[in-house]
């Protein structure tokens, strides 16, 4: 029986009645039976043990130094991944972003050349403006003054002329440039027919000299490699429009002063295809032991320690600590490699986070048994066996606000999951023409299509088109009604139907789509909608069930206390009637249902009849374990 009269686990003693009466308070903080949370913990722990046990097969392949997603790349990603948000307000005239880069996959050589150019521009602002004056002039001249065709021809003229210039000193080159512009009479036309662009055609003598110097300085920055020079200039010349020209100009001017920083910037561009200086955040705030521990033996040991904590968590042993460690440990696997994750890891995190917040060890746990043992022992030591707190502990888990809080978190998050899954499917055409169901159950990688019997069954089913279409329509409509209907209707009297629908859906997903552990996690989560009484009475043991027993003991004999307290701790179904008398020299346990008097040892009777111990009575049959059990029970 749950202790409903308790106020001890209410959210706050000092909260005014006006708050406690509010629907917000009642929904989130009204103390409730923690059994549901305990049940979810056990289910989660069991699935989690399996899921993580499977890592033993692939510890190195998934988490090792040379895993699919190697530690080097994982570390690079968690430190460097960019996040860019659009600006919060529009500012007319303000340039946002960075100029276009050549596509790395389609145009890798141009990309490389341009990155080299940006990394090798002059360091100081003054020198940069001086040496790239020709480029800046072209980029910053508005479209109305310089048509795109002219921009292109003026820029491309640089590489055309470069091929004709001798590899000599500046003065010689200047002279050679002039000769190209004004070939002397009687001298043969240059091998490469150079078309003189508009800027040079319209320039005065002085302007022409300035332009020639600017082009020569630009060529100096472009470097001696003619292929690279061509790629850079052709790419820049292909950029159209005022905005892209201004972006290039701004980008070059704002490049870092030091060569190392510019090189690092280009390296960042090379990997992430964005400018780190315009990002809102770089890197992900994550943690994982597997990013640092790469020695196979050490990895095995760390993983084994984690598995031990999963077992402790499942059984509810030191739950507050073990739950935290398991939550933390599970995140370590997840944060190591996003690439190997799928729905199961998402659900696992949801479960663990809310179990941690909900203090899930208050029920169906070893912690609970330990509390019962402490209470029983305190009662035995108290005068007249009266101790209110101990009686409260023994009469059942007290309602707790943290349990309600945890359960509500599950419920609301579950509704988010279903609503998102359901509504997002409405975007897809195959969900509208009902083909989605077919594609899901016939997916060769997920479904059991590798089994001949399944393939034949599917073929038989679809051979009658009307039957197949009817079935796929039914599956699709069922999926929609469960996923979209659940968040709205689960709060009504229809809850049992929607919970059953959800369980059915996930059974289907487990069997047909092979996502068994995912399905089990989802089922664990949907248990948050089950009434605690259902779990307490139908899944665990109802009070008053099982064989009636009588325990004869003497509370004045201190040596009997441990055994009596242990038996009382394990008597979760209130099977034992307590018979305390100073005449009892030793502890004995009688089966009141037995027709004949039995002289079985106490622990044997307890393991045969107490519902909780009965489920593990095989352990007591193992000789070396039985000795340990007897010691724990204080049985001599």
């Amino acid at each position, binding site marked *: 029986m749950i202790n409903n009269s308790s*106020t001890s686990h209410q959210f706050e*003693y000092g909260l005014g009645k006006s708050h406690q009466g509010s629907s917000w308070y009642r929904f989130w*903080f009204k103390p409730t039976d923690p059994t549901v949370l305990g049940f979810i913990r056990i289910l989660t722990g069991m699935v989690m043990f*399996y899921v993580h*046990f499977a890592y033993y*097969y*692939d510890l190195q392949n*998934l988490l090792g130094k040379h895993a699919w*997603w190697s530690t080097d*790349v994982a570390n*690079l990603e968690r*430190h460097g991944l960019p996040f860019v*948000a*659009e600006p919060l307000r529009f500012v007319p005239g303000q340039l946002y972003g960075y100029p276009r880069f050549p*596509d*790395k*996959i*389609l*145009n890798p050589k141009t990309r490389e050349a341009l990155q080299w150019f940006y990394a090798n521009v002059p360091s100081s602002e003054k020198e940069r403006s001086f040496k790239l004056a020709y480029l800046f002039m072209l980029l910053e001249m508005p479209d109305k003054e310089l048509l795109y065709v002219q921009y292109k021809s003026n820029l491309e003229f640089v590489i055309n002329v470069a091929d004709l210039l001798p590899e000599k000193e500046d003065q010689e080159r200047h002279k050679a440039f002039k000769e190209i512009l004004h070939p002397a009479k009687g001298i043969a036309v240059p091998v490469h027919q150079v078309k003189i662009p508009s800027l040079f055609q319209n320039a005065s003598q002085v302007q022409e000299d300035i332009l020639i110097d600017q082009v020569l300085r630009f060529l100096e920055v472009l470097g001696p490699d003619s292929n690279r020079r061509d790629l850079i200039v052709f790419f820049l010349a292909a950029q159209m429009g005022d905005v892209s020209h201004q972006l290039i100009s701004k980008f070059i001017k704002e490049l870092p002063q030091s060569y190392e920083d510019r090189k*690092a910037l280009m*390296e*960042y561009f090379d*990997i992430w*295809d964005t400018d*780190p200086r315009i990002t809102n955040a*770089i890197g992900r705030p*994550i943690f994982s032991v597997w990013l*640092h521990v*790469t020695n196979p033996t*050490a990895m095995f040991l760390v993983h084994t320690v984690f598995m031990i904590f999963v077992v402790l968590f499942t059984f509810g042993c030191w739950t*507050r600590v073990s739950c935290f460690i398991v939550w933390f440990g599970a*995140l370590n696997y997840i*944060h190591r490699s996003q*690439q190997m994750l*799928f729905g*199961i890891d998402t659900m696992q995190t949801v479960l663990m986070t809310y179990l941690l917040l909900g203090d899930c060890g208050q029920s169906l746990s070893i912690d609970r048994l330990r509390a019962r043992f*402490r209470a029983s022992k305190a009662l035995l030591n108290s005068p007249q*066996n009266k101790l*209110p*707190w101990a009686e409260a502990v023994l009469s059942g888990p*007290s309602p707790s606000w943290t349990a309600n*809080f945890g359960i509500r978190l599950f419920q609301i*998050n579950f509704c*988010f*999951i279903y*609503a998102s*899954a359901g509504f*997002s*499917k409405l975007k*897809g*055409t195959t969900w509208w023409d009902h*083909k989605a169901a077919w594609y899901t159950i*016939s997916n*060769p*990688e*997920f479904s059991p299509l*590798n089994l001949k019997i399944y393939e034949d069954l599917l073929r038989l089913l*679809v051979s009658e088109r009307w039957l197949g279409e009817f079935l796929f329509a039914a599956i699709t409509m069922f999926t929609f009604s469960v996923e979209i209907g659940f968040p709205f209707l689960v709060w009504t009297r229809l809850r049992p139907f929607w919970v059953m629908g959800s369980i059915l859906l996930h059974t289907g997903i487990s069997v047909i789509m092979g996502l068994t552990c995912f399905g089990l996690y989802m089922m664990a989560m949907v248990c948050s909608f089950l009434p605690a009484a259902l779990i307490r009475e139908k899944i665990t043991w109802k009070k008053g069930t099982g064989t009636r027993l009588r325990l004869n003991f003497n509370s004045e004999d201190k040596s009997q206390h441990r055994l009596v307290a242990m038996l009382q701790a394990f008597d979760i179904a209130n099977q034992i009637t307590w*018979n*305390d008398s100073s005449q009892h020299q030793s502890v004995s346990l009688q089966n009141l249902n037995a027709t004949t008097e039995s002289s079985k040892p106490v622990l044997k009777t307890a393991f045969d009849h107490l519902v909780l111990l009965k489920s593990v009575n095989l352990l007591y049959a193992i000789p070396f374990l039985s000795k340990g059990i007897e010691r724990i029970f204080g049985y001599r």
Partner: protein
Amino acid sequence: MKEYVPIPHSGDEEPEIPPNIIYRWGIIGFGLTIIPAIVGLIQDKVVITAGSKWGLGLQSYESPGDFLSILRIFMVAIGSTCAGCAISMRPKLPMAWLLGAITFASSACGMPIEWDSFRLFFRVMSFVFLGFSVYFYLSPKVRFVLVSLWLAWHFAGILSAVTNPPPSPWLSQQAWIRVFRPYLHFIYLNNAYQFYSPDPGPASELWSCIEYTPDDPSVHPVPTPEGDPGYFRWIKYPKRPEFYRDPLGQTYLRVLALTEQASQLGQQNSTTEWEQSLATSRRNQVGGLFPMENIPRTPQYQAPATTFHNLLVPSYIEHIAFTNQVPGFTIKSIKLYRVKHMLPNFDEFVKDVHGNYVSPYDPSTYFPYFYGEFVPISYENDPNHEVHYHLKDAEDPMLYWLLPIVLKSNSRLNGLTMDQNQWNKNASVSQLEKNSKGDDNKNISSSEARDILSQLKSNDKDSSARFREIYHRYFTDYVSKHAKFDHLRGSNLP
């Protein structure tokens, strides 16, 4: 006789553990972490390299193997666990949380500098614990308001994550990136839960052809005794039942998730038409060898997102190389193919009037895209002398192009797959027997059927060679042609 029956209680709580015990554990925890923290402050030196603020530094994050560092890690682990235990004994005690906060703060300094992700974890947790210590000092009304505010924050964050995948509202993007992202990333509650949406699609496999060079050609001559131009091994990830190593297929699904990542495609709109034409013009150079087949169900060119091209594919290649080392041989190159396994259409799956059908594992349902040829390279300045793999030719004409497996004519053999074990031989034989008796419904002439039947029954070759012959009789396999080695053979390594 005195009956001992639990009686209704008044609702009192179990006496709490005295604070001095809690403080003792907390102080032990702090004591254990402060020592490594002091050592850390003296020992650790932060080396800032150019670009390290963008995560490009070359520093190692591997655990240092020296005794002092290992001792520091153990002391921090035990110390923080002690502090956690102290809190768990009496979670409503503000001082316990405060001790926990101090312990976790010193743990952050106590971890070796290479364990930067743990330093981050301890720093965050120390702030969380500090928050709880303040929380338990506050009045109930304030606490009620604070928990309510956290609830609103938490589910607003979940909402931003759920609505973030495109097409997404501007507000949702902003809220996610600017406000909730660090919180949701830290606890991994960042999923949008949009499973199988908008549409369920085909799964992706990864096939790799590894070519080896023998270390001693006198022992392993090239060409090989079978006449191959070199030694090779084909690996297909994930393949059932090899990768299905646990009863519920968890191991298989992990690898499937990994291979699925390679199917994240780049955005076409980020490239210009001219750039897209580059891929086509390069492809046309080898049009003679690999003619463009008419494939209606899938685009012929599919490039991955740039970051996947930069990080994921090279990482996968290095893993494949690392797990496929063969004694006496050196890896010469690795060719990688992302293989989209198309789902059978409803009508294709049905048997026709003659009882013919297409297997869901029919070779023509596999669409391999070439993801590049990678060759080993080692850097002179690498102290570990590790071999890395680089894309051999970034302008490879076939890079990210489809290399289909196409049916040679309209004829198709029932139950024929690429896997001999999976091949439904009985279905094939029964069809052939029908055809050999004059039922030419699938363009297999009776003479051709008799020919294949006799081939199947002959004993002059081993069964796998016979199977391959039948396969190649029906299918033009461009992927094998491109790799130079038949993927059906698996390997020719001795």
